[in-house]
C-alpha cells in the first residue's frame, strides 16, 4: 500500500545540510494501522509528509500502490491527494467555516455536486458522532470534537489512506482514548490504511498493529506491537516501552536484595501468551513447600494477547525453592534478580 523505498530527505540551509529522513525502508500493508514513534526532531513529521508529497524526497521514492508519488503531474498529484486524508495535532480547521462546511470543504474543492456533498457530509458526521454540531464553529468546540471534525473532513473524500500527524498529542488521556477508538472504527468499517506518527507509546500500544521506532532520521527497530513491546532490542525502544510497561526493578526491591541478614530469592517472571491465563503461582505454592510473595509487576494486553511481567520472592527451604523454580521454568521465562542486574 505505502512503500518507502530507501527514502532520504535532506534540508539545505545556509550551506549546511541536515538529513531529516535517512534511508528509510518501510512497508505499510493495506488495512493496517502502522505507528511510527520517536522523540521530537527524529524526523517523523517529515516522514509522514513524504507520503502526500508535502515534502519531496531528496533520494529514494515513496510508492503508493506501486506508483511513485514524485512522478505524478500536478493535476494527478491533486487527484491522488484526495485519496489520502490527513489529520493534525492542532486540527487545522477553517475558523471561518462551521462544522458542516469544514467537512464539505475538500468535496467542494473537488467540485462535487452540492447534493452529493450534502449526503456525504451527513453520513460522515453521523459516523464521528457530531451530527448535532454541524452548525457550530470550531472555536465553539472542545479539542476532542475538533479532532472529530478533522477526521470527518479527512474521510469526506473516501480516502484509501489516513495520515495522523500527532493526532492525539494535544488531547487529554480520556479524549485520546475516544479518538483512538474512532480511528480503530475508521480502519474496521472503511478498511482505510492508517499511518500515524506520535511520541506517545500508549497510543501505539492502544491501536497499532505494527510499530517502527525512529531516531535521528533512521528507523532503528520495527515489528509487530507484540514483538517490539515484549522484546525491545534498541535502547531507545526500551525507553519507550518502559514509559508504558513497568519492567524496571524498583529501588525498594534492590534494597531488599542488599539485606545481609538473610538471603532472598527474587525472580522476574515473564508471562507470554496463554501462560498469563494459568494460575501458575498458585500451583507453585500448592505443589511445593514455598510461599510466593509478589513484589512488583504488571499484566497487560498487547493486540489482544496478554503479556505480563512479575517480580516475585520465593520463601522456604532451599531444596523446595529449587524444585519450584524447576517447575516454573517449564512454562514461563524466569530470571533471578540480583543486586547488580536489571
Amino acid at each position: 500500500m505505502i512503500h518507502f523505498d530507501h527514502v532520504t530527505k535532506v534540508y539545505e540551509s545556509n550551506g549546511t545540510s541536515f538529513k531529516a529522513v535517512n534511508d528509510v525502508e518501510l512497508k505499510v500493508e493495506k488495512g493496517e494501522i502502522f505507528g511510527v514513534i520517536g522523540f521530537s526532531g527524529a524526523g517523523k513529521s517529515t516522514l509522514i509528509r513524504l507520503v502526500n508529497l508535502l515534502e519531496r524526497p531528496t533520494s529514494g521514492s515513496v510508492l503508493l500502490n506501486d506508483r511513485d508519488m514524485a512522478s505524478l503531474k500536478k493535476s494527478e498529484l491533486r487527484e491522488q491527494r484526495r485519496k489520502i486524508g490527513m489529520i493534525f495535532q492542532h486540527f487545522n480547521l477553517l475558523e471561518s467555516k462551521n462544522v458542516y462546511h469544514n467537512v464539505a470543504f475538500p468535496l467542494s474543492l473537488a467540485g462535487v455536486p452540492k447534493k452529493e456533498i450534502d449526503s456525504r457530509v451527513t453520513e460522515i458526521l453521523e459516523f464521528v458522532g457530531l451530527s448535532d454540531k454541524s452548525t457550530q464553529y470550531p472555536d465553539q468546540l472542545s479539542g476532542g470534537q475538533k479532532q472529530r471534525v478533522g477526521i470527518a473532513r479527512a474521510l469526506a473524500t473516501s480516502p484509501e489512506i489516513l495520515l495522523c500527524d500527532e493526532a492525539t498529542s494535544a488531547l487529554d488521556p480520556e479524549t485520546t482514548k475516544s479518538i483512538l477508538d474512532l480511528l480503530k472504527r475508521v480502519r474496521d468499517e472503511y478498511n482505510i490504511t492508517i499511518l500515524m506518527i506520535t511520541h506517545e507509546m500508549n497510543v501505539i500500544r492502544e491501536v497499532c498493529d505494527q510499530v517502527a521506532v525512529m531516531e535521528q532520521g533512521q528507523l532503528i527497530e520495527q515489528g509487530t506491537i507484540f514483538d517490539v513491546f515484549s522484546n525491545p532490542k534498541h535502547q531507545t525502544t526500551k525507553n519507550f516501552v518502559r514509559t508504558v510497561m513497568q519492567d524496571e526493578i524498583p529501588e525498594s526491591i534492590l534494597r531488599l536484595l542488599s539485606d545481609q541478614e538473610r538471603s532472598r530469592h527474587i525472580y522476574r517472571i515473564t508471562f507470554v501468551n496463554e501462560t498469563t491465563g494459568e494460575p501458575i503461582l498458585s500451583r507453585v505454592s500448592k505443589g511445593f513447600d514455598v510461599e510466593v510473595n509478589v513484589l512488583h509487576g504488571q499484566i497487560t494486553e498487547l493486540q489482544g494477547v496478554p503479556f505480563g511481567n512479575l517480580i516475585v520472592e520465593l520463601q522456604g527451604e532451599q531444596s523446595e525453592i529449587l524444585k519450584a523454580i524447576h517447575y516454573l521454568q517449564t512454562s514461563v521465562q524466569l530470571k533471578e534478580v540480583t543486586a547488580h542486574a536489571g
Partner: protein
Amino acid sequence: MQVDLHTFWPKILEATNETLLMVGIALVFASLIGLPLGVALVVTRPNGLLQNGPLFKVLNAIVNFFRSIPFIILLVAILPITRLIVGTSIGTAAAVVPLVLFSGPFIARLVESSLLEVEPGVVEATEAMGATSWQIVFRVLIPEALSSLVLNITIAAIGLVGASAMAGFVGGGGLGDLAIAYGYQRFETEVMIITVLLLVVIVQVIQTVGNQLSRKIRRH
C-alpha cells in the same frame, strides 16, 4: 477676528463632501491595487505558495519605494501623471490620483500582514486535500483573514482621511484644507475647531463601522 459661521456652513458642508468623496474613491482604487499586490507579496515570498524570489524582490522594492515618499512630495512629484490620468492637475479628482498611489502600497502591506496571520497549518491541510494554489488563496487565505482584512482596510481609510488634508495643495478641497486655509493660516480658530471636530467624527465613524463589520465577520 470673528467669523460669521452662518455663511460658513455651506462651505463646511461642501468640504465634508469633498473629503468623503476623495477618501471613498481613493480607498476603492487603492484597494483594487493593494489587494492583489498584497496577495502577490504573500504567495511569491520565500516558502510561499508560488515562491518566486525575483518577483517578490521587485514587488517588495516597489511597495517600499512608494511608502517612503512623504505624501506632500508625492502629490507634487506626480502632477504630470495626474494630468495624464484625470486630465487636470488641480481639483478634487486630481487629488485622488496621488492618494491612490500613496494608499495602494500601504494597503498591500496591510493585506500581506493579514494573510500571513492565517495559520500555515490550515494552508498545509488544504494543500493535502489536493487544492490548487488559486483555491488556497481565494477559499482559504482571504476568507480566513477577512476579519483582520476589514480592520486593516479601516486603518487605511483613516490614513486617507489624514492624507486628504494635504490635498489643498492641488486645490483638492476637503475639511483638512479648510482647517489649514482658514483656521491655521487666517487664525480663524472657530473654523479650525469645527473642521477638526468634523474630522474627528468622520474618523470615529469609520473606525466604529470597521470594528463592527470585523466583529460580525469573526462572529460569523
